[in-house]
């Protein structure tokens, strides 16, 4: 126990959470404040945060209700808090946020004090994408890059085959030639 006490260090963590969409828009701020108070009560100092905003989920999530059935959610309010706290209290913070009734899902990560979130800058950076990577972005282009020779060859073969008997006369000549050969 003494060893663990001496190992206590102050680290930077970030909690990302989803609030259920059944929470009305005007109560979202107070729910976010409730999550924040769980963290601050444990002695954490908040570095950065973003109040939850409605987000369409990439897939349907389920949350177990008190009665044992499941509620399904296609959208949720996504918010996050970055904070600094001693490593020995982080587990209790995690469990308290997880069992909060309006929290659909949460993710706790260890991070750095510096700002890592690009936010709106990300859109500009994503647009300014290097062409070499962009070329590989889609499935079709990647197939073309992996097998450029086979594809071009196949196209050439297709072109050659139907162009041989272009007219009816040519076709007759080619048939005659084949008959003579036999």
């Amino acid at each position, binding site marked *: 126990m003494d060893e663990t006490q001496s190992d206590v260090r102050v680290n930077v963590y970030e909690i990302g959470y*989803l609030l259920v969409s059944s929470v009305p828009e005007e109560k979202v701020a107070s729910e976010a404040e409730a999550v924040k108070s769980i963290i601050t009560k444990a002695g954490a100092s908040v570095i950065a945060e973003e109040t939850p905003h409605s987000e369409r*989920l*990439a897939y349907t999530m389920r949350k177990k209700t008190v009665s044992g059935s499941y509620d399904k959610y296609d959208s949720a309010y996504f918010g996050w808090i970055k904070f600094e706290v001693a490593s020995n209290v982080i587990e209790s913070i995690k469990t308290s946020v997880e069992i909060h009734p309006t929290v659909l899902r949460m*993710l706790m990560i260890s991070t750095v004090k510096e700002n890592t979130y*690009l*936010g709106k800058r*990300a859109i500009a950076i994503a647009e300014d994408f290097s062409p070499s*990577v962009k070329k590989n972005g*889609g499935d079709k282009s990647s197939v073309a890059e992996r097998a450029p020779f086979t594809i071009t060859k196949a196209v050439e073969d297709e072109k050659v085959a139907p162009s041989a008997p272009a007219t009816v006369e040519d076709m007759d000549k080619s048939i005659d030639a084949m008959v003579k050969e036999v």
Partner: protein
Amino acid sequence: MKKQCYFNQHNISHIDYKDTEVLKKFVNPHGRMISRKRTGISAKYQRQLATAVKRARFMGLLPYVAR
């Protein structure tokens, strides 16, 4: 010609799972991550990218499977 690492170019030292606009560029239309061979980013950032994509998927910001 050798490809330049995308994250080195833009001075991004930590890849954040919340930057889904950036992460989307490194997954294919089915939602699968693109290999390092094709993204051309350094091993360090490819590892960070993989973690970020998995975190974003868990939080419903990116799909596990699309279509």
